[in-house]
Structures are given as C-alpha cells and as structure tokens.
C-alpha cells in the first residue's frame, strides 16, 4: 500500500485516507449488519434473521413508494439525459453557437442553487400556475435538477474526444447525421451512460424537493423512509436499503469491470 520511496510521498496521508474510508463506510456497515438483526434494536445484536427482509418485501407502502421512485427516476433520467446530450453536443461541437459560457452557466445553474430554495420555488410556481399532474410534477422537478448531473460527464467525455475522428468521418464521405450516428454517439456512449447513472441516483435519492412538490399519493421511497426514520423504527428500512445498496454495488462494479476490459 505504501511507496515511501515515491518522491511525492507524504507521511500520514495514508492514515488519513484509511480513516476517510472507514468514516465513509461506517454507516453502511451498521446499516447492513443490523438489517440482519433478529430484534428491533439497532445497537444490540441478538442473532441473525431475515425477518426484516420478509417484512419489507411484504409491506405495501414500501412497494408503492419504491414503484413511484423508480417511475420518477426513469422518466427524469431519460428526459434529463436526452436534453443534456443535445446541449453538450451543441456547446462542444457547434461553432455557430454564440454565448457558450452563458448557456453553460444556465445548464449547471441547478447545482448552484441550494436544494431548499429550488424546492420552495418549484412548489410556489406549481401552485401559482395550478399545475397538478401527480407524479408528473415530481418528474418535471427532478428532470430540471438532473440536467447538470447528466450534462457534466457527457460534456467532459465530448471535450476529451479527439475531434479529428469526426473530421476523418466527414473526410470519408459521411454527412453530419451519419457522423453523429456512426462516430460521435458510439464514442460518447460511456459518457452518456455515466451521466444517466448519475441522474438516476440523484433522482432516486432526492428528498427535500420531492417532499415540497409531492402531492398526496405521490410518496416516494425517501419520503416514506423519512417518516419512519423520524420515529426511529428502521429495521425494514435497513433491509430495503441493503437490497438497494447490494444491487447498486453490483451494477457499478459490473460497469467498472466492463470499462476496464476495454
């Protein structure tokens, strides 16, 4: 783990890094361990049990909330990623576009506004125009703040891509659309995927904006979890979170290995 001969080596930094990862993973470890606890207690271990997993999967509210969360995340991801890809292509490749820094600024604006402000502003706006589409309201709100999360990795990938590849395609008799279809998009795909993945997590994880914008019946998983966490009863939450964590670790690791193989 250590290369003390490295000219860049600084003593102690390895221990800080170790501490950092312990700090980052401590809550996750507690979460996973106590999801298998036989008793309701989240501090005293009283034997291994899958009881909470059974209960969580049988819980109608959890099922409904999970379904809502997934519907919202899927739609918001598709909308945000599509719009972000178009915008990134225009800003990175179209020389006719003026005011690039202004447009770039607008695209990352949702990152610059604290969530709570976005939340109350969206609530006020929706109630002012009388928009009431159920999950639709939440999908709109999520699409907005997912745009920069999708945009940044796509743009970074585009900027890192050799523009002469597209010039080579044009040179070899491809028109603009063929070049986009055959060269740019296939090469951009890893960026689009990581942008979409990021947008998906951010949507799935969002709490405060959803809390403000959601109408009755549009409970998402974070809102349901919040209602449980506030009263401190969480074994089912631990179980469902562990499942989500397991699934996502699998996906992320698989994506990493696929990328590495290339």
């Amino acid at each position, binding site marked *: 783990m250590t290369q003390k001969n490295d000219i860049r080596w600084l003593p102690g930094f390895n221990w800080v890094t170790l501490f950092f990862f312990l700090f980052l993973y401590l809550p996750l470890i507690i979460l996973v361990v106590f999801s298998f606890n036989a008793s309701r207690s989240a501090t005293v271990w009283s034997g291994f049990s899958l009881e909470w997993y059974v209960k969580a999967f049988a819980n109608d509210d959890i099922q409904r909330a999970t379904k809502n969360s997934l519907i919202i995340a899927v739609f918001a991801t598709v909308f945000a990623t599509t719009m972000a890809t178009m915008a990134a292509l225009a800003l990175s490749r179209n020389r006719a576009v003026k005011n690039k820094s202004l447009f770039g600024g607008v695209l990352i604006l949702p990152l610059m506004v604290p969530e709570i402000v976005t939340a109350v502003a969206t609530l006020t706006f929706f109630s002012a125009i009388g928009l009431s589409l159920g999950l639709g309201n939440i999908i709109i709100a999520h699409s907005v703040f997912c745009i920069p999360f999708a945009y940044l990795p796509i743009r970074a990938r585009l900027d890192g891509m050799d523009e002469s590849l597209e010039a080579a395609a044009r040179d*070899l008799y491809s028109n603009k659309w063929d070049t986009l279809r055959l060269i740019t998009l296939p*090469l951009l795909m890893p960026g689009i995927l990581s942008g979409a993945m990021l947008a998906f997590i951010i949507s799935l994880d969002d709490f405060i904006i959803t809390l403000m914008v959601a109408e009755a019946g549009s409970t998402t998983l974070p809102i349901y979890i919040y209602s449980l966490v506030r009263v401190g009863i969480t074994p089912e939450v631990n179980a469902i979170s562990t499942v989500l964590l397991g699934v996502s670790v699998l996906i992320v690791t698989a994506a990493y290995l696929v990328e590495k193989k290339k």
Partner: protein
Amino acid sequence: MTSAIGLSGLQKTYPGAPPVRALRNADLAINDNEFFTLLGPSGCGKTTLLRLMAGFEVPTGGKLTLFGEDIAHLPPEKRPINTVFQHYSLFPHMTVLENVAFGLKRLHKSDAEAKQVAQQMLDLVHLADFGDRKPGQLSGGQQQRVALARALAPQPRVLLLDEPLSALDLKLRQSMRAELKRLQRETGITFVFVTHDQEEALAMSDRIAVMSQGEIQQVGDPATIYEFPENRFVAEFIGDADFFEAEVLGGTEYKLSNGALLTGPRTEAAIGSQVTLFFRPEKAELKQSGSGLPGQVSEILYLGNSTDYVVDLAQGGALTVRSENHKDGTALADVGADVVVEIDPAAVRVVTT
C-alpha cells in the same frame, strides 16, 4: 493541362483581436500524379492550407479548385479528397477492416465490395492479417499504415497527409518514407504532404512549397529549393548556410562587411548597393594556407559523416565550414589552428532579405 489542385488568392483569416491571418493570398498549382510537399515551421499556415483543401475550414477569400472545379465551399464529404491525419484518428470502436471500409460504405458501395476493396488496401500496406483487430491493438507504425489504407480505399483524386510521420521513431520514419513514395507511384494519386522536417521534404517530394507566416515563399523541386533559394528565409530554413552582408563592387567582386573581398556570381544590383551573400558550409574548403579568408578554428562539432569547423575570421566575424573527415578518420584541423577558408565563386549566392 488543368492542375489537380489550384489556389488563386486563397485566404484564411481567423476572427479575433487582432485577427489571425493564417493564409494570405496563396497562389499555387499542384500537378496531377505529383508528390507535393508543403514545408514550413509550425504556425506557417501549411496545416491551415491542408484543412482548406480537405474542407474542414472555409476560406475567407480566393479560389480553390480541384481539376478545374471550384470546391472552396463544398463540405468535406462531397470532395474526392481524403486525409491521413497526424495522429491517425482511427475509429477506436471499429475493427481495422471496418475502418478501411468506412469511406466505401458511405459512398454506398455494397458490403461485399467494400470489404473486398478494404482487404486489397490492407494487402497494399502489408497488413492483410490485421483486419479483425481493433486499432488500439496495433503499434504506431501499423496504425499509420491503416490510416493510409483507409484514406486510399475510396480512391480519392488527391490524398492529403498531415505530418503523418511525426509520431514515429527515426528508423520507422525512414522506412515509411520509401513506403509512401512507393504507394504514390503505384496508385498514381496526387499526394499533398505537410511537414516541418526539411530532410523528409527533400527526400520524398517531386516539388516543394516552402511556407512562412501564411505566405508561400518559394515553389520548386528539391534541388532548386536547396541550391537556389529565392530569399533568406528559404536559405535558412532548408539546410545550413553562412550569411554575409556585402557591398557590390561591380562585376563579380563583393566587399564583405568585415572588409574582406570575395568573388561571387554576377549580380544586377547597382554598384555600391548592399546585398546578402550566402554559401552552404559544405561548399567551402578548409586549407592550411593559400588564397581565401584567413582565420582560426574556434570550435569543432563532430557529426559522424562530416565535421563542422567554426572559424573566427581574422578580419572579424565567424563562419562554419562543413568538411568530410580524412579517410583515416582524423580531423582536418584542431581548435586554435590557423586556417584559410576557400570559397568557390560558383557556390556563392546572392539573396534578397
């Protein structure tokens, strides 16, 4: 005969403050079936000119023709001109064969025909068995040859090569020179080659255009460019040269600025006017004694096949003489030795500055 590529008054100015005039009023005619080289230091406008020919840039003025037809405003995919890119720009997500077949497919050739021609092209560049590999699995030299095959496959009227050898190491670069000459001869396609390497340009080209600061300085075959440069930039950029400021004394006599007299070519310049003389260091001779410019050897640079002697002239100034070593490998003179530099009048040139 119409030229393969014709430029008249071609200009490219990039907006900015101040605007960048990358190419100013270029006039040039590149013949069919010619190995033509654009030579110059970086920033001289040679790459801009190449990109204008390829269609990646649109000129801000002037005419650009391909076999007499105006192509200045055609997009790149409408021009029967292909490019070998500096860093090859092979599509990393396609196999070598798919890369080579790419242009043919875009020209709506059938899959079978595209594949067949692509395979022929791979044969031509000696990579017949590499069709199924991805570009990332090839060495630099192999990628280079795939890039060539890909650009040649659609049988363009003109092939543009943008410093294609600059990323290769020395030995490979030398063997690729011969390979490129062979391909040009075998295909009969006009090659327009961009480089900043004068040795490469002299070795490969039928004709060379030397460029500097967005302007074409001189066009000619390699020997003419080397032997009879039209101005000081060309003389300095290609090969080595010793320069003297001199006053015309009439006939073939010149008075150098250090007071020494030198015999050179006949000139049309008026008696008493100032001119610049130069000669190639390998055309002067180092003697122990005799007529010529006396001086003292101040530095010796051993180059392997020859040696450069820097001579401080007795009357002021310094010049370099390049000389073969003795057959037994010993030097002509040591540092500090008193010598005479003899310059054949036929080797002296007068240039405008």
